[in-house]
C-alpha cells in the first residue's frame, strides 16, 4: 500500500492566492486554520486538482482565475509517495467552456511524469473519483443523501469506479420500460388478431352464403319473368283501348261537322279561289296604296326640281344625262366662261394701253412746244436720246470754255483797272510788294482760279466770283515799293494785261468754237436752238428726255397694235365656245344657256330635275304593275265587285275567306272522322264488344286508367326484383372474391408472427428484468454491505449507542440508509442534521478506505469544515474518525473554527495557520 503525503505547496497562483506557499504540511493529520475568505477552500481545491486532475464545468472554475487576461493557474505540490520524493507542477488553463486544461507534470524520484502518468501512479485515479471520495465538504454532508450521486456512489462502487456512468439500476429501469412497452405491444397485437379473426370468420362463411344467394337470384328471376309476361298482356289490352277510344269522338266529330256544313251552306268555286288568296289581295292592295303614295311624293319632288331649273316637264321627262354628256356640257361651259373672261381681259388691256398712249402724246406735244418745236418732234427725236445725252457732254465743255473765257476777260478788266490805278497815282511810284507778287495780285490770281473751278458748278458762278476777287484785289493795300518800282510795276501791269488779253482772246475763241459745235449738233437734230447760255444744259437735257418719250411712245403704239390683233383672235374663240355650248344645249332641247359662271350650279339643278323625273316615271310604272297584279287576284269575281270601292271589296273578300275557312275546317273534321272510322271499324269485332261494355269516352278512359295502374304496380314490383337481383349479384361477386380471403390470411399470418415476436420479446425482457434484479440485489448486498458495515463500526467507535445501519431500497429503487437503534428505525433523511452528517462522514471515510484498498494508494483526504453541522457532543467523535483515518490516509482538515482546531490538536493533529 503506497501512501501519498503532502509536505508543502509552493508558488500557488490559484483563486485568491498569488505565489502562495504553505509549508509544514508533512503530518498525517493536518489542521489548516484560517479565517473566512483566507482561501482555505481554494487551497483545498488546488490540492484536489493537483492530485486528482481537473474536473467540473467552466462556470465553477471561473472563480479561480485572476482575470480574463490570465486564465492560467497553478502551483507546485511537494511530498512523498511511498517514500519517494514527488513534486507535481500543476498548470491549468481555465477555458470559457468545458473542463480546464490539465497541464500537470511531475517528477517522482527523478522520473518525469505527465498528467496521464500521474493518474496511473495514483492507481488509475480519475478526477471524479478523487472529488467524490477524497474531498469531503462539511456543508454538503447534511444533504448528501439527496444528492444525485449518492446512490450512484453506493452502487457503482461495486463496479470499481465512482466516475463510471454505468448504473445498473438505471439500466434495469430501462429494461423495465422496454418490458412495459413490449407488453403493451403484445396486447395491442392480440387485439388486432381478435378483430381479424372476426373478419376471417365472416370470409369463411362465404361458400354457404353463396348458395343461398344463387337460389334467391334464381327465384327472383322467375318472378320477374312472370311479371313481365303479365305486364305485356296488360299493355296489349291498354293499346287496344287506346286504338278504340278515338271511335266515339270520331263519330261525334263527324256528326258535328255535317251539321255545321249544312248550316254554313256552300261557297262557289270562284269565291273559293279568291277567298283563298284574300291575304294576298290585301297585301297587294296595301302595296298599291304604298306605291300611290310614292308616286305622289315623286311628283312633288319633280315639280320642285323642274321649277328650280326652269325647264318644262316634257324636256325633263324621259331625258337622261350620262356621265359623258355631263362631262361634255361642263367642259363646254367652262370653256365658254374661260374664253369670255379672256376676251374681257384682253379688251380691258388694250383700252388701258390706248389711253396711256394718248396721254403720252399730249405730254410730248407740250414738251415739244416748250422746247420750241413747231412741228411733231417725233421724227427728229426718235431714237436720238443717246445722241442728246452725248451732246450734254459737249454742252458741258462749252459751258466750261465760256467760264474760262469769262474769267480771262475778267482778268483783262482787272489788269486794265490796275493800269489805270497805276497811272492815276503818279506820285511816288507804287512800291513793289516785298514778295514777288503784290498781295492784290495774289488775291486776284486765287480768285480767278476759284472762278474757273466754279464754272464747273454753274456757268453763272464765275462772274460774281471774279467780281468779288477784283474788289478784294483793289482793296488790299499794296506795300509800297518805292519810286523806282512804280515804273516797273506799271510795266509789269502792262505786260500782265497783254498776257491777259491774249489769254482772254484765246479762251473766248475756244468758247465760241464749242458753242458752234453745239449749235451744229442741234441743227442736225432739227431741234430748236438753245435760248440762253444758262439754259443750255437744261435745254439739251429736256431734249434728251423728250427723245426718250418719243421712243417709248413709238414702242407702245406697236404693242397696242399687237394687242388689238390678239383681241380679235380671242373674240373668235369666245364666240366658238359659246356656239358649242349652245349646240349641246340645243340637242337637249334647251334654248338658252345659263349665265356665265353659273353653269355648274345650273347643271346640278338640271341633273336633280332629271333624277326626279326618272323616279317619278319609275314609281308610276310600279304603281301600274301593282294595280294590275291586284286586279288579277280578284279577276274571277271582278264583275261582282265592279261597283264597289276597294275597301269594300277587301271587306267582302275577307268575309268570304272566313266563311271558306270555317267550311273547310268542318270538311276536314268530317274527313278525319271518316278516316278514323274507316280504319277502326273495319278491323276488329272486339271493338263492338268493348264499346258495348264501355259505351262512352269516360268509361273507356276509366278502363284505360285502371289498366295503367295495374301495369304500374307490376312494373314497380318487377323493378324491386331487379334491384334485389342486382344487390344479390354484387354480394355474390364480393363473396366469390377469394383473393380477399388470401389477403386476410396473409395479414393473419403476419400478425401471428408479430405477436409471437412481441411475446417472445416480452418473455426475454421479463426474464432479463427478473435476473438482473436478483443479481443486482445480491451484488449490492455482497459488495456494499461491507462498506456500510465499516461505516457502522466507525460510528459505533465514536458513538457507542449509535445502533445499526441497514442499506435498503425504496419502491422506486432509491438507496436508503436506515438507522436502527432498538425499535427505532429512521431513514437517513429523517435523522437530525448532526446525526446524518456524522453518518455520512463515516460513510465517506469508509468509501475512502475501500478506495484505498482497491487502488493500492492512500491518497490524502481533504476536508472542508466537516464538523460544521455537528454539535459539541459529536464533534470529538468526528475528529476521532478523521484522526483514525489519518493512520492510513493523510488527512488535511481546513477550518476557521478554533474549537475544531483544539479538538484536532488533541487528537494528534498538526495545526498550520493560513
Amino acid at each position, binding site marked *: 500500500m503506497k501512501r501519498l503525503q503532502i509536505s508543502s505547496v509552493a508558488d500557488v497562483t490559484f483563486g485568491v492566492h498569488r505565489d502562495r506557499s504553505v509549508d509544514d504540511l508533512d503530518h498525517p493529520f493536518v489542521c489548516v486554520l484560517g479565517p473566512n475568505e483566507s482561501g482555505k477552500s481554494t487551497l483545498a481545491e488546488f490540492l484536489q486538482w493537483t492530485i486528482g486532475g481537473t474536473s467540473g464545468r467552466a462556470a465553477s472554475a471561473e472563480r479561480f482565475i485572476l482575470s480574463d487576461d490570465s486564465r492560467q493557474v497553478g502551483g507546485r505540490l511537494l511530498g512523498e509517495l511511498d517514500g519517494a520524493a514527488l513534486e507535481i507542477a500543476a498548470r491549468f488553463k481555465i477555458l470559457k467552456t468545458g473542463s480546464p486544461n490539465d497541464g500537470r507534470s511531475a517528477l517522482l524520484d527523478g522520473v518525469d511524469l505527465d498528467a496521464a502518468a500521474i493518474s496511473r501512479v495514483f492507481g488509475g485515479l480519475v478526477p471524479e473519483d478523487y472529488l467524490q471520495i477524497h474531498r469531503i465538504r462539511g456543508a454538503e454532508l447534511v444533504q448528501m443523501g439527496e444528492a444525485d450521486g449518492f446512490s450512484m456512489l453506493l452502487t457503482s462502487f*461495486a*463496479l*470499481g469506479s465512482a466516475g*463510471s456512468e*454505468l448504473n*445498473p439500476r438505471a*439500466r*434495469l429501469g*430501462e*429494461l423495465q420500460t422496454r418490458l412495459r412497452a413490449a407488453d403493451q405491444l403484445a396486447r395491442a397485437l392480440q387485439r388486432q388478431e381478435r378483430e381479424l379473426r372476426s373478419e376471417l370468420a365472416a370470409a*369463411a362463411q362465404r*361458400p354457404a352464403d353463396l348458395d343461398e344467394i344463387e337460389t334467391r337470384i334464381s327465384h327472383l328471376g322467375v318472378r320477374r319473368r312472370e311479371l313481365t309476361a303479365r305486364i305485356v298482356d296488360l299493355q296489349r289490352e291498354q293499346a287496344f283501348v287506346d286504338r278504340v277510344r278515338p271511335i266515339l269522338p270520331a263519330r261525334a266529330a263527324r256528326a258535328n261537322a255535317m251539321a255545321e256544313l249544312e248550316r254554313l251552306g256552300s261557297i262557289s268555286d270562284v269565291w273559293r279561289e279568291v277567298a283563298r288568296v284574300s291575304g294576298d289581295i290585301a297585301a297587294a292592295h296595301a302595296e298599291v296604296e304604298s306605291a300611290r303614295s310614292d308616286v305622289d311624293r315623286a311628283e312633288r319632288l319633280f315639280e320642285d326640281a323642274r321649277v328650280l331649273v326652269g325647264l318644262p316637264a316634257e324636256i325633263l321627262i324621259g331625258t337622261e344625262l350620262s356621265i359623258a354628256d355631263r362631262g361634255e356640257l361642263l367642259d363646254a361651259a367652262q370653256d365658254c366662261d374661260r374664253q369670255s373672261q379672256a376676251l374681257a381681259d384682253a379688251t380691258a388691256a388694250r383700252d388701258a394701253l390706248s389711253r396711256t398712249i394718248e396721254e403720252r402724246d399730249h405730254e410730248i406735244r407740250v414738251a415739244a412746244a416748250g422746247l420750241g418745236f413747231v412741228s411733231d418732234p417725233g421724227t427728229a427725236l426718235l431714237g436720238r436720246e443717246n445722241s442728246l445725252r452725248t451732246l450734254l457732254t459737249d454742252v458741258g465743255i462749252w459751258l466750261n470754255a465760256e467760264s474760262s473765257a469769262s474769267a480771262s476777260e475778267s482778268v483783262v478788266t482787272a489788269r486794265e483797272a490796275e493800269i489805270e490805278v497805276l497811272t492815276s497815282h503818279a506820285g511816288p511810284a507804287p512800291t513793289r510788294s516785298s514778295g514777288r507778287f503784290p498781295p492784290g495780285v495774289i488775291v486776284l490770281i486765287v480768285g480767278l482760279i476759284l472762278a474757273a473751278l466754279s464754272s464747273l458748278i454753274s456757268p453763272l458762278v464765275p462772274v460774281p466770283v471774279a467780281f468779288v476777287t477784283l474788289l478784294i484785289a483793289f482793296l488790299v493795300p499794296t506795300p509800297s515799293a518805292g519810286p523806282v518800282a512804280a515804273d516797273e510795276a506799271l510795266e509789269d501791269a502792262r505786260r500782265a494785261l497783254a498776257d491777259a488779253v491774249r489769254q482772254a482772246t484765246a479762251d473766248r475763241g475756244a468758247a465760241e468754237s464749242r458753242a458752234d459745235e453745239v449749235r451744229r449738233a442741234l441743227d442736225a437734230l432739227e431741234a430748236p436752238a438753245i435760248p440762253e447760255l444758262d439754259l443750255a444744259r437744261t435745254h439739251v437735257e429736256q431734249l434728251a428726255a423728250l427723245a426718250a418719250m418719243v421712243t417709248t411712245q413709238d414702242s407702245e403704239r406697236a404693242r397696242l397694235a399687237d394687242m388689238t390683233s390678239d383681241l380679235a383672235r380671242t373674240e373668235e374663240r369666245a364666240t366658238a365656245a359659246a356656239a358649242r355650248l349652245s349646240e349641246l344645249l340645243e340637242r337637249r332641247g334647251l334654248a338658252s344657256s345659263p349665265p356665265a359662271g353659273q353653269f355648274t350650279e345650273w347643271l346640278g339643278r338640271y341633273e336633280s330635275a332629271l333624277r326626279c323625273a326618272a323616279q317619278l316615271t319609275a314609281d308610276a310604272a310600279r304603281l301600274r304593275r301593282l294595280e294590275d297584279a291586284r286586279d288579277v287576284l280578284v279577276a274571277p269575281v271582278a264583275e261582282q265587285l265592279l261597283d264597289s270601292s276597294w275597301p269594300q271589296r277587301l271587306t267582302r273578300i275577307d268575309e268570304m275567306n272566313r266563311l271558306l275557312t270555317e267550311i273547310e275546317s268542318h270538311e276536314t273534321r268530317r274527313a278525319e272522322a271518316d278516316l278514323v272510322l274507316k280504319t277502326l271499324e273495319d278491323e276488329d269485332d272486339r271493338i263492338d264488344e268493348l264499346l258495348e261494355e264501355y259505351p262512352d269516352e269516360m268509361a273507356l278512359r276509366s278502363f284505360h286508367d285502371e289498366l295503367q295502374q295495374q301495369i304500374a304496380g307490376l312494373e314497380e314490383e318487377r323493378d324491386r326484383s331487379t334491384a334485389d337481383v342486382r344487390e344479390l349479384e354484387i354480394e355474390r361477386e364480393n363473396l*366469390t372474391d*377469394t*383473393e380477399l*380471403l*388470401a*389477403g*386476410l*390470411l*396473409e395479414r393473419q*399470418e*403476419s400478425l*401471428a*408472427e*408479430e405477436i409471437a415476436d412481441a411475446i*417472445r420479446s416480452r*418473455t*426475454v*425482457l421479463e*426474464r*432479463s428484468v427478473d*435476473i*438482473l434484479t*436478483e*443479481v*443486482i440485489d*445480491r*451484488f449490492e448486498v455482497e459488495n456494499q454491505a461491507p462498506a456500510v458495515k465499516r461505516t457502522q463500526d466507525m460510528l459505533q467507535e465514536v458513538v457507542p449507542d449509535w445502533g445499526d445501519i441497514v442499506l435498503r431500497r425504496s419502491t422506486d429503487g432509491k438507496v436508503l440508509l436506515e438507522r436502527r437503534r432498538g425499535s427505532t428505525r429512521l431513514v437517513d433523511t429523517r435523522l437530525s442534521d448532526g446525526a446524518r452528517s456524522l453518518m455520512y462522514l463515516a460513510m465517506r471515510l469508509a468509501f475512502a478506505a475501500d478506495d484505498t484498498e482497491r487502488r493500492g494508494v492512500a491518497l490524502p483526504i481533504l476536508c472542508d469544515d466537516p464538523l460544521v453541522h455537528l454539535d459539541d457532543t459529536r464533534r470529538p467523535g468526528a475528529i476521532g474518525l478523521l484522526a483514525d483515518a489519518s493512520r492510513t490516509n493523510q488527512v488535511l482538515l481546513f477550518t476557521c473554527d478554533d474549537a475544531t482546531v483544539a479538538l484536532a490538536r488533541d487528537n494528534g493533529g498538526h495545526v498550520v495557520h493560513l
Partner: protein
Amino acid sequence: MARSTFLHAADLHLGAPLQSLGNRLGPEAREEALRLSRRAFDTLVRVAIEEEVAFVVLAGDVYDRADRDPAARRRVLLGLQSLSDAGIPVFIAHGNHDPLTSAELSGDLPPGITVFPTDRVAQHDVMMPNGVTVTVAGISYERAEESRRLVEAFAGVSGSTVVGVLHTNVGGASAHGNYAPSSVAELEASPVQYWALGHIHDRQVHATPKGWWAYPGNLQGRSTKATECGAKGVLLVDVNAAGSFAEPRFVPCDALRFERVTVDLAPVTDVPEVSDHVLTAIATTMEAADDRPLFVRLELTGPTPVAAALDQSWNDYSEGLIEEVTAALGRGALVKILRTYRPAIDLIAERRRERLLGKVLLRLDADPELAEDPALRAEIERTLVAALDGSR
C-alpha cells in the same frame, strides 16, 4: 427423342396465402406479390411441357385448405387441362392439407389425371419413351391427421421400376406434423425404387441402395421461416434405359423468393460500415435469386465493437438502412430485421471478474430452465450484456 423423365412436385399449397410480407410493403406491391405467388403452378406446368416429361407426380398438399379455394381449384384444373392437352398424365396423392374427403376432386378432372384413392395403394403403368415401363403407385390421405403408416401399404406393389407417391414425415421430424409416419428403413425395405415424397418443405434428396427418396420441397416459399426460404420448385428425374433412376435435379418454379440474410458485424468498427456489409450481402443474395423479387429477413449478428453505438442510434440509423435495403431490393421487400449482435466483450473472461456482468452471466449459466431453451437463454444473455455494456 422425347426424354424419359418425370416431374416430382409436392406441397403446392395452392390457395395458401403468403405468410407475413412485413409491414413495409405497400398495398399495390403486396397485391403484386400475392399475384406472383400464384404463378408457381403455371411454371410447373410449363416446365413439365417444355421438358416433355412422361408424367407428373404430385405428392400431397396440392391445396392448402381442405375446403378448397375455388380460385385455387380453378387454377389447378386449368393447369391439369394443359397437361392433359399435352398428353402428360398426372398422378395425385392428397395430403394432410387437402385430404380426399369428398368425390369432388376425383370428378370433373381432365383425361389423364389420376387421383390415388385413400383405402389402398393404386398403381398405374406408364411407358417411357425409352421403352421402360414405370409403375406409379400412391395413396391419399382420407383425413387431415392421417395416422396410418401408409408406407406399409406399398409392400404389395409390383413392377421393376416403381415410383412411390406418398405424403409422409420420414423419421418423425418434430418440426412437421407427424402424419402418415415412416422411417428410412421402411422406405428402403419397400419395392419402391424412387420415393416421390411430400410434406417437408425443405428440399432433400437421399440415396438408397435401390434408388432415392426425395422431398422436392414446396413449390413456392411463403414466409421467412427457415423452411420457406431459398429456391423452391420441382425435381426432374430421368429414368435410364436400364430402368433405374438418375439423381433428381432441381428446377426452380418460384416466382418470388424468401431468404434469410445474416450479416456478421464482428469486423465492423464504425456504425456507418454496417450498411455496406448489409448491402453487399443483399446483392449477393439477389444475384442468386435470378431476378426474382426477394423478401428478406435480415439478421445483424455477432460480437461487435459498435453494439452500444448501434443500439443507441438504432431508431435513426435503421430508417436509413431500411431505405437503402428496400431500394436495393427493388420489387422485393425487407420483411424483418433481427438484431442478435452483442457487444464485443469476452464473456468467458467476464465471468471471472467480480463485476455485475460476470455475476449475471453466472446466474444465467446456473438457470436450469434456460439450459433447456438455448435460444431463449441466448436472447436473455444478449439483452443483459447490452444493458450492462460499460461502453454505453
